[in-house]
């Protein structure tokens, strides 16, 4: 056993967090400041005595907000541990108690006191009228709560949780804490809001009448000649999109892997498209092509002498747009599935006298079944969550996500109605998510582990091959055509009316001038553009960090409740952006966490919307790093934090970069959540573009979209360069000189959820 130096004083980590907590309590402003915290202008606003910017300590000393004082006192309790070993039973017990009580106290005081004194009447009855109110918590409160959380984790580690590892316990506590605060709490608040009546009281009856209303579930389209309920519309569209994207995705996957097609690589590039395309841009292109004054519609009308119609608005247009947008996702999933089938399965079938067609029907297709179901569910979820396309193309075909938006931003501003709609939407997507994880997760076709066979996938039977070629060729051309339309459309003066080419849209949006202060960003789009870049740049590293930490816990650590932990962290993937947006508006509009109208709320929504991307990137590459590397580092005397930093992080560099870029790009393309959260000061590109579409300024909208696509292409291109040049392969080369050796086991991986790197939805 290694000799420990005798402990003098206090455990250094405890000192660190006590100090952080005290800084939060006594130095930084306890409540949120009006101006940006990091400009430090609050130092000039009467700090530390003015109650707006005062630290909790000064507030309490001046007799204001005296209820904050116990938090400060509790921060001093750990000092009682002076001179005690970490193994001392008292050490753990005391820290756990202080951390838990302190954290609970900070949270409780936040929630118990509202805008008008006590939130609940029984508290008023107990303590009397409170002549004071709550403000939104600020950085002081944040540090203080963080300190309690980490003291609690140190205590838990001291009591032997997860092998007594402080870093791991703290990380788990941190991830659980932020996920609870920024995913579960808003959702729960939204659920509660759904039961609020117009008079402001809670009522189950009102909730029931709303959730079973005809507006949602009406069957008018079957019985009479009116539209169906919104929920049915969404469900119908999502099922259609799920089925068709799966079929198209399968066709593309088969072309790449089973036909001997030479240019598979360029076809694979298709899978990158949804990453760089803001979701509604496809919808815009569809309008340009098939709208009332769309190119194809006009041509058709002239050729056949019929009246041009608005047929594309509604189900047909939505279907086309979503198929274009989400087929690449299904392709991405299915290419893994189709490749993952061990070639020896198909070869075995052939040596057993099955013809190509029989092999495909009896072996290949059944083995793809879990992957097909997976692709269907992804398409279903994406379609349900899609907000941009229905907004620009929906017409009279109302779907849940847009209905939620109009409930909040419309004249009615009915948060309860929005919450009810959001619950229905959430039920659909969570149902699909749950099915994907638990039903498909168990249905993996794992046979043997161990060495696999080298081999090649046989080609498809000829008839099927030509069919597949025809479909894929048509769809690929159509996709190219649509993207070309976007590019071309950005130069057209007024589509369908004045088709002359012009730079005016670019000039209007992105003009740069000079004045006495230097560069003058004259274009109308610059403000939202820079805001978007800034927010994306801020949120990307935070997303990557949180994602990788979570991945580290999932791949490398074992602790009780790990599967629930995993489910919780991946859950936000299944929560549609619109739901996140509504729940943030509801939850963070009032103290104790008052964030609406700030840039912080945008950053937070991106972090928690995109966290699963980081987690997946991390899990995927961390599973490739042999565990013995960490173990050898640990046995050589490094602790788990040092191991994470010195061994795992450097090996993960490609994954980090990928997570960074994806979260950056997704932040730039997202629309559904942030359209609820933008403010005049913090407007984002996507919501600005949607605004232009609503004003019928299609030219500007398309030009701006084209610029966004170009920027993201550049970012991704740079990442490819960076990752390509430093490939740290940990995989040993195949022991066979033939093509790659594969195992049947890969099927089980593909049966699980795969990353869908689509736009923000």
């Amino acid at each position, binding site marked *: 056993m290694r000799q420990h130096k005798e402990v003098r004083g206090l455990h250094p980590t405890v000192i660190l967090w006590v100090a952080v907590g005290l800084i939060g309590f006594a130095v930084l402003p306890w409540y949120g400041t009006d101006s940006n915290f990091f400009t430090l202008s609050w130092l000039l606003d009467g700090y530390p005595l003015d109650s707006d910017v005062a630290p909790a300590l000064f507030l309490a000393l001046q007799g204001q907000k005296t209820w904050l004082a116990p938090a400060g006192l509790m921060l001093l309790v750990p000092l009682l541990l002076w001179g005690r070993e970490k193994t001392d039973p008292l050490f753990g017990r005391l820290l756990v108690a202080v951390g838990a009580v302190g954290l609970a106290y900070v949270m409780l005081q936040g929630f118990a006191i509202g805008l008008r004194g006590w939130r609940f009447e029984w508290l008023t009855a107990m303590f009397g009228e409170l002549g004071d109110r709550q403000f939104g918590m600020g950085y002081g409160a944040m540090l203080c709560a963080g300190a309690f959380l980490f003291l609690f984790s140190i205590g838990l580690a001291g009591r032997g949780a997860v092998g007594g590892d402080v870093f791991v316990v703290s990380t788990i506590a941190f991830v659980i804490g932020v996920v609870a605060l920024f995913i579960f709490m808003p959702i729960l608040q939204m659920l509660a809001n759904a039961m609020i009546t117009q008079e402001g009281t809670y009522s189950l009856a009102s909730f029931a009448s709303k959730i079973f209303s005809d507006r949602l579930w009406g069957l008018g389209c079957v019985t009479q000649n009116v539209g169906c309920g919104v929920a049915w519309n969404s469900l119908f569209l999502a099922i259609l999109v799920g089925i068709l994207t799966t079929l198209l995705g399968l066709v593309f996957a088969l072309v790449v892997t089973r036909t001997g097609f030479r240019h598979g690589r360029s076809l694979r590039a298709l899978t990158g498209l949804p990453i760089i395309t803001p979701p509604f841009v496809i919808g815009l292109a569809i309008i340009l092509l098939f709208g009332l004054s769309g190119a194809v519609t006009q041509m058709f009308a002239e050729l056949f002498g019929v009246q041009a119609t608005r047929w594309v608005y509604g189900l047909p247009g939505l279907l086309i747009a979503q198929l274009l947008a989400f087929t690449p996702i299904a392709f991405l999933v299915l290419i893994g599935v189709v490749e993952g089938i061990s070639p020896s399965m198909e070869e*075995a079938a052939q*040596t*057993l006298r*099955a*013809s190509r067609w029989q092999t495909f029907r009896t072996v290949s297709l059944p083995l793809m079944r879990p992957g097909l179901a997976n692709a269907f569910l992804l398409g279903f979820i994406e379609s349900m969550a899609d907000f941009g396309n229905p907004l620009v193309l929906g017409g009279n075909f109302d779907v849940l996500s847009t209905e939620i938006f109009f409930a909040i931003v419309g004249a009615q501003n009915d948060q309860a109605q929005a919450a009810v709609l959001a619950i229905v939407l959430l039920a659909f997507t969570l149902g699909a998510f749950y099915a994907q994880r638990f039903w498909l997760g168990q249905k993996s076709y794992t*046979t043997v582990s161990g*060495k*696999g066979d080298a081999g090649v996938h046989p080609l498809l039977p000829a008839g099927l091959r030509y069919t597949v070629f025809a479909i894929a060729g048509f769809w690929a051309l159509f996709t190219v055509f649509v993207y070309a339309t976007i590019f071309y459309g950005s130069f057209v003066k007024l589509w369908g009316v004045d088709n002359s080419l012009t730079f005016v849209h670019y000039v209007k949006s992105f003009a740069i001038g000079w004045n006495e202060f230097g560069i003058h960003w004259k274009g109308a789009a610059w403000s939202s553009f820079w805001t978007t870049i800034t927010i994306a740049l801020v949120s990307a590293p935070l997303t990557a960090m949180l994602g990788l930490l979570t991945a580290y816990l999932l791949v490398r650590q074992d602790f009780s409740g790990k599967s629930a932990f995993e489910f919780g962290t991946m859950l936000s993937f299944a929560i549609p952006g619109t739901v996140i947006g509504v729940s943030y508006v509801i939850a963070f509009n009032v103290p104790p966490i008052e964030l609406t109208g700030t840039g912080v709320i945008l950053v937070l929504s991106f972090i928690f919307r995109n966290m699963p991307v980081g987690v997946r990137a991390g899990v995927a590459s961390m599973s490739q790093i042999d565990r013995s590397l960490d173990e050898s580092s640990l046995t050589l005397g490094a602790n788990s934090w040092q191991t994470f930093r010195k061994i795992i992080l450097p090996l993960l560099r490609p994954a980090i970069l990928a997570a960074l870029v994806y979260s950056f790009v997704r932040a730039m393309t997202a629309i559904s959540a942030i359209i609820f959260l933008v403010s005049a000061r913090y407007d984002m590109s996507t919501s600005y573009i949607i605004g232009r579409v609503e004003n019928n300024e299609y030219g500007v909208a398309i030009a701006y979209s084209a610029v966004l696509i170009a920027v993201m292409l550049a970012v991704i291109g740079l990442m490819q360069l960076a990752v390509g040049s430093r490939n740290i392969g940990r995989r040993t080369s195949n022991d066979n000189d*033939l093509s790659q050796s594969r195992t049947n086991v890969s099927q089980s991986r593909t049966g699980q959820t795969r990353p869908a790197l689509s736009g923000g939805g």
Partner: protein
Amino acid sequence: MAQIKSNAASVEFRSVSKFYGKSKVAAVNDVSLNVEAGKLVTLLGPSGCGKTTTLRMIAGLEMASSGQILIGGADVTSLPATDRDVSMVFQSYALFPHMSVMENVQYGLRFSGFPKKEIVERADAGLELVGLTGFGDRLPSQLSGGQQQRVAVARALVLEPQVLLFDEPLSNLDAKLRRRVREEIREIQQTLGLTVVYVTHDQEEALAVSDRIIVMNNAIIAQDGTPRELYEAPANAFVADFIGEANIFDCKVTEVQGDVATVSLGQVTLSLPARGHTPGPARLAARPSRISIGEASAPGTLPGKLEKATYVGSHLEFVVSTEFGEVFVVSPDVDSGLRAGQPVGLGFPERGPVLISP
């Protein structure tokens, strides 16, 4: 009850080569071989020697780039796998995970035009043959590795193929099971009189199961013979070293009279079968167990110094340094009392060393 029979046929390769894609390097280079009906022939060699490619060409999973392949005397060179009367047991067994054991075994029969009743009977007979009667309803994932392996064998056997192929069938089994399974395979092959081509890189496995072994190296056949021939009279240094262990000495053939060559190895002179050698420099391969170790001064021995003596239970292992480098010797006499550091003499009994081509 149906009986599984054998339709054993011969396999012949005539100058077969295989190039992958546009590769200029042959995976199999101008190979000619002949497998008689009813025999078990092993393709043995290190990774990448072309043995698996050869097997896959027999199966029809790879097409020969040039040359002719005949099964049962009929030219099958351009027939795909589906149309050849050959079945294969894959390294990973390739059992269809979405089908039960019974469905797996019936799979090939369903495409062979048998009536339903016969399909069932044959599948039952196949499972009985491998001792898995009653396991028909299970899924492959519910079986142990050894059982999966037997299902794969049954699935291939029920088709009564002309040739049965095994691609490293034991590599996914643990060491204890390997010996039993390979004996079972050999037993079934001999009882039914099947033609089997068996690929492995494990020389012990090959020696144990084969009627004949074809050693491959660098896309060509290095030697073709019975296990005993390969072990006792390796054709070259590669075979000598690959099958069992061998000490290779540089020597000199001083004289050849008829079939007997006189070889001088340092101060030792040996009379050995010439095997086509002519006077001049040559090489000698000697198995560690076919070198005797004794007193340093004994006549006709190669002097050396005992560097290491290791007791491994059933025998002693010695490393002796000589003018030809280190020599590895194994002696069953565990009570010899030889100590590391002492001078020794190495003797070469009559049937010990063989001349090999350089």
